[in-house]
């Protein structure tokens, strides 16, 4: 085999260790529910790709030729940057969704608080029980209703 298509042994060992470690850590985090499955996908795919490239180095060389890069290391750096960018985009999408959910929750919270305040105001006899279920916020907002 041409030397161009082989990877030095140290590189192979290092890449294998890194890819296996990433895979194990990510799977373990999912197992311990520290990482949700949806966020583990990109990491797992990357570690698998690294693992495959150790044994199929010629694929990396072919890819390097295909994208016109000089060295296989350039290809690796390029794809690691693309990977990080994809990860950021994934986070931005999630943050946008979360912002929307927080907005809807806060609006609902504000409207419910007003309903509770009005209920407490309208039913003076039963206000003790209702104020208790409404929580301390309603009491603070309605000092007149305090027993």
């Amino acid at each position, binding site marked *: 085999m041409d030397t161009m298509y082989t990877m030095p042994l140290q590189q192979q060992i290092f890449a294998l260790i890194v890819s296996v470690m990433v895979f194990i850590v990510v799977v373990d985090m999912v197992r311990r529910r520290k990482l949700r499955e949806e966020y583990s996908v990109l990491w797992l795919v990357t570690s698998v790709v690294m693992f495959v490239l150790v044994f199929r180095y010629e694929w990396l060389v072919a890819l390097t030729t295909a994208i016109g890069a000089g060295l296989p290391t350039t290809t690796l750096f390029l794809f690691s940057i693309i990977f990080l960018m994809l990860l950021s985009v994934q986070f931005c999408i999630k943050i946008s969704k979360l912002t*929307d959910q927080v*907005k809807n929750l*806060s*609006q609902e*919270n*504000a*409207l419910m*608080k*007003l309903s509770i305040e009005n209920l407490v105001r309208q039913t003076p006899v039963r206000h003790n029980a209702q104020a208790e279920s409404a929580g301390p916020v309603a009491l603070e907002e309605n000092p007149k209703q305090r027993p």
Partner: protein
Amino acid sequence: MSKILIIIPAYNEGTRIAEVVHRVRELNPDFDIVVVNDGSRDDTAQNARTAGAEVISHPFNMGYGVTIQTGYKYALAEGYDFLVQIDGDGQHDPAFIPRLLAPVLAGETDFALGSRFLEEASYEPSLARRVGMIFFRWLVSTLIGERITDSTSGYQAFNRKVIGFFTTEVFPCDYPDADMLLTLHRAEFRIREVPVRMHASATGKSMHTGWKPLYYMFKMVLSIFVTLLREKDVSR
């Protein structure tokens, strides 16, 4: 008789909100008033309540667009037929509420937009703001095919169909103005401008300070662009 709600979005307007509520109430005694307090750090909520308004308080500050949408959600839930929106800083003259509402009540339009440029006595905004306003005025008028002179106006009146429409995710909560008009137009709502008087804000406080005008321009152009790319909303 139709149920009409006046919503007043307010953020740290403790010094002026009572006066605004009193004046709105004095001129429009038959309408309900709700102040949407956007997580103010001062006594806005307390003062508005004392002045006789219902108060909806956000748990924290979320911005103008979210604040008015909370008001729309309240109006929809409480079954109001018409809604008037007026700023809490005293910029909008409440004497113009009946004039703004008239075409909506008469069924001549779905959405009435108060324009300071159709009324001679209104204040003149700064040059930079005027340039931005002229650009968006041209853009919106071209896209809607109708003359719009004050696309950034927050002085509005509309009917229940629009209230329902604005409570959905189509409402642009981040600076809703030019893109909101375009969304309305594409959903085939009728829009009409009505002359109103606006004063300069007493403190000169504006949503558009620092880097915000640049972000605003960027956001609005992008928002208008993607609105045009979207399918027409036929959910109404």
